[in-house]
Structure formats: C-alpha cells, structure tokens
C-alpha cells in the first residue's frame, strides 16, 4: 500500500554542515515499508521547486511508528527541507519502490556504500541485524567518502557491531581510493564475496563500476539506483534505466517502480 498524507516532522538533526537527519511520525508508511524503499517528499507549497524529492528510508522504528531520512543539501529542494522545524507537517508519498531482496540462508552479506548511498544501506544493516537476526560480525560494510570528515553513521555501525572498512579518496582515513577499488581488492584477495549477497548504493559512476564488476565476476549484487523522478509511482516513465535481463532486446525499466533496487548484472548504465 502507498499513502499520500501530511505527516508530522518529529525530529530534526544536523549531522554535519550539509547532512541532516529528519524523523517523521508516519504509522501508515512505517507499517508498509521494507529496506530499500523510499519516500517522495513535497518540500514546498510553491511552484518552484515544483516536483517532489525522493529519499530512502534510513531508519525505521516499528514501535514508535516513525522513520528517519538522511540527506545531504545539494540544491534548492534539500535546502528547503533542511530548514523545516519539528512540528511541521510534510506531504509524504510512500513507501515506494521494490526494496532489497534478502536471500535466505546464512551467507555473509556485503554492503558497499558511497557518499549518501549510506542511507538505504543503513536501513538494510539495521534490518539484517535486528529483524533477520544475522550476526553483525558476519556483515561486511565497505564505505567510501571523499575525505575523512565526510563519514556519517560510524557510531551507529559500531553500535550494531558491524565491521566497517572505510575508504577515502585522499587516503585521510582507511583505504586510499574509491570504495569500488577497495571492493575489487576484497573480491580478488579473498573469496568473501563469491557466494555473498552484495548490496550497494552510491553516486552514478560508482553504480556503473559496481555493475561492471558484477557482470565480470558474476556477483549477486543489488544496486539502489537514483534518477530524477517526476511521479515516483510508475506512471510517467520518466525515470527509466536501460536493462537487458534476458540478454536480448534493450528494455527500459522504471527506477521508481521496478526498482530502485536492481540486479547489478541486469542494468546498462552509462
């Protein structure tokens, strides 16, 4: 079920200069959400910015009927959102999208996040540990940022007990380089991902690399993709990604409805 309604903003936290965490009291959304889902938010009531903005569900509290989003201010929409105060009611549409597919069994999940890609992967991490009762030690979390100061949620990951491998482009923390390079090294070094379910989210070039690596090494990797999304519901066909699931004809799939989670081997990113 999808809902569109005004929901109350109940918490607002500034995590760094550009990164904010907002919490909503939204029983209808919480009850129907699963990791990888997103909400589509109307940030203002003026005609500019006009369209809704999409945000992954970052944390979900079933007991308190509330959920959080985590976002970075990158333009007018997120800027307006960052200035909302608790007590305000925001027009949310959700939960939307297909969600991650969580394979049965005790294989060790590998999560690979780049930048704000942390948001959907955190919700997955919470879910794996808390709902799926997967031992946190079995989960690998690879997390890349440009610089040391960019990381968020490290405390949360620690608390969950998940081992986290960091990568920074300037080497100021952890591995020096892209998180995809760190990932590739792990793939080559060990056999740890061969039969592991992999989950990844990050900027477009990273998703492209993850897709290529998955095809090359035949990995079972799920990507959370982004696109400009006018409707978020699957009605406008504005958010498509090229896929070739059956090895045949190219085929456009809707990121909002058929995704945002796709098998990395299925999509053709450019």
């Amino acid at each position: 079920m999808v809902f569109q309604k005004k929901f109350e903003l109940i918490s607002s936290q500034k995590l760094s200069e550009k990164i904010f965490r907002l919490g909503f009291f939204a029983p209808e959304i919480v009850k129907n959400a699963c990791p990888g889902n997103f909400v589509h938010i109307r940030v203002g009531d003026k005609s500019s910015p006009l369209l809704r903005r999409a945000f992954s569900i970052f944390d979900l509290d079933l007991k308190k009927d509330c959920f959080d989003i985590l976002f970075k201010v990158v333009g007018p929409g997120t800027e307006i959102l960052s200035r909302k105060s608790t007590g305000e009611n925001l027009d949310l549409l959700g939960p939307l999208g297909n969600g991650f597919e969580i394979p049965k069994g005790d294989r060790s999940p590998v999560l690979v996040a780049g930048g704000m890609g942390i948001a959907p992967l955190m919700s997955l991490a919470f879910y794996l540990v808390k709902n799926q009762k997967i031992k946190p030690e079995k989960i690998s979390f690879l997390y890349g940022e440009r610089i040391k100061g960019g990381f968020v949620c490290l405390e949360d990951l620690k608390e969950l007990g998940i081992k986290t491998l960091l990568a920074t482009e300037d080497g100021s923390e952890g591995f020096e380089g892209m998180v995809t390079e760190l990932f590739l090294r792990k793939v080559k070094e060990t056999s740890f991902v061969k039969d592991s379910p992999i989950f990844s989210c990050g900027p477009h070039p990273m998703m492209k690399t993850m897709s290529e690596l998955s095809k090359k090494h035949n990995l079972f990797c799920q990507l959370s993709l982004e696109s400009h999304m006018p409707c978020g519901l699957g009605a406008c066909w504005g958010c498509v990604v090229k896929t070739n699931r059956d090895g045949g004809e190219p085929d456009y799939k809707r990121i909002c409805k058929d995704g945002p989670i796709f098998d990395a081997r299925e999509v053709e990113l450019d």
Partner: protein
Amino acid sequence: MVRYSMPGRWSLTDLSVRVGKTTFKNPVLVASGTFGYGEEYSELFDLNQLGGIVTKSITLNPREGNPPPRTCETPSGMLNSIGLANVGVDRFIQEKIPFLNKFNTNIIINVAGSTPEEYLRVVEKLNHAQGIDMLEINISCPNVKEGGMAFGSDPESAHRCTSSIRKVTNYPLMVKLTPNVKDIVEIAQAVEDSGADCISLINTLVGMAIDFRIKKPLLKTVTGGLSGPAIKPVALAMVWKVSQKVKIPVVGIGGITNTQDALEFLLAGASLIQVGTSNFVDPQTSVRIIEGLKDYCEKNEIKRVMEIVGKLEN
C-alpha cells in the same frame, strides 16, 4: 464509462458536462502521459471520482521511448522526452482496458502514430474494444522524430489527419493541439471542420535545459516538452482565443494545479479541463479540484458548473 450521472456526496450542484453525446460526471480529467493507465493512482484514491481518465498515448506497436535522462525540472515546470513509450495497442486492449473498465468514469484513449496510416490502424483496432468513451487524437507530441507534432502544426495536415480518422470510427473525437504554432485558432478551426467533437489544448511547449557544469543538455534528446505552472498563461491565452472561434467544446490543459486554476480555464472558455504535471506534485490534485469546484458552486449558488464556462468579463 459513466453509469450514474451524479455520484459522490449529495450536492445541490450539477457538475456534469456534456460534450456531444458524451456526459462527464464532472469537468476534471487527468491528462495523457501523466496518469499511466490509471493503475498506479488507483492505490491512492478512488478513480470513480474523476470526470475522466485520458490514457498514455497508444501506438500501433509497443515503443520503448527515448533514452534517459527523460525528464528534468525547470522554473515552475518540467521538461519531458518520454517519447510515447507504451505497450502498443494490442496489449493495451488486452491488459489495460479491462482494468480501466472497472471504474465508473469516462475512458478516453489517446492515440498517436508516426504516419497517418498508423493512427487509422490503431483506431480500427480500438473500434473492436469495449468500454471506450472517447478518443483523444494526439497530433501534438513534440517528442518523436516522425509524426506527432508535425500533423498538428498546420491547418491542412491537421484537417487531413482528423477527417481520415473521423471516417473510420464512431467514437467521439477529442483532438489535442500543440502550442508550438503561429496561430492555434486556424488549426482549431480546421479540426472543427473535419468533424472533431471537441478540441483539447495545450500539449507541451518545446523547451530545453542544460547542465552548465558538464556542458550537456539535461535531456538525452536535447529538447523536450515543457509542462507545469510555467505554461499556464500560454495555455489560458490559447484556450480563450480558440473557444471564441470554434463552436465545439474546448478542453483546457496546461499547468492546472488547483481549483482556482480550473476556474480560470472554465471562465476562459474550457468545458472540461485536464490535470497533467500536477498529478506528480500532488497525486490527489484532480479530486481536490472536483471538491473545490463543488464548494465554489455551492457558495456562489451556481446550479450547473457549465454556467461558468466562458463567463470571463472583459
């Protein structure tokens, strides 16, 4: 299909609108391409409330549409270059019409094509389908290489295209015009002369957006169609001009987001309106407008919503 003419909450106001032999329970339709085939929105509200649903353009064969990125945002508007992505008329009749027929609202099938023959073949196939109330002929799509807008850009080809369709079907015809012309009135008149039952306007304006950082257009197809509140003034002017020069009803489209906008279009001369881009912003726009029109009429003691149509004072 409309089974009752005035459903919904009991009201003193008659919101129904007649276009030829077709009755709309209220003047609020949803525009082609912005409401899919109704499925997605049916989860969010009761589609029975709508005056009508105009489906995404249908072509003879399935079409994948244009490569992404297909949309971007502009000041008070958006650009799209979906490019008539659709399942093709056969699958449409099989899979989509049965779903639409569950609802007590008018179903208007938007038809497009790359050649005049393609329009005719789609229409002929639709002749055999059930539960269609009207066809909207899209001679105004800016997002395809062939056909589309070309047919609607001059009076002769608009006349030719509409008359040939008129000959092969008994469905009432709504013909959708492009604003990318010098004089939309002459095209509307040509369409009227060729037997259309009503005229809908406007489709999108040709527009473009650029990401200066990467020096690339934001749409893969470079140009696309501009819609949303930004184009409302253009749409209103065209509706006003056309409705004064044709006798058949006019359907107003372009940037309608609320009751006030809808009233403006009715005053300018539109008998029906279509909500497009605003379905994305607030999926319940159309039902809020229906409620709003009801309230407006009741407060102003207007018995039939049709009384407002064209009542602009100069």
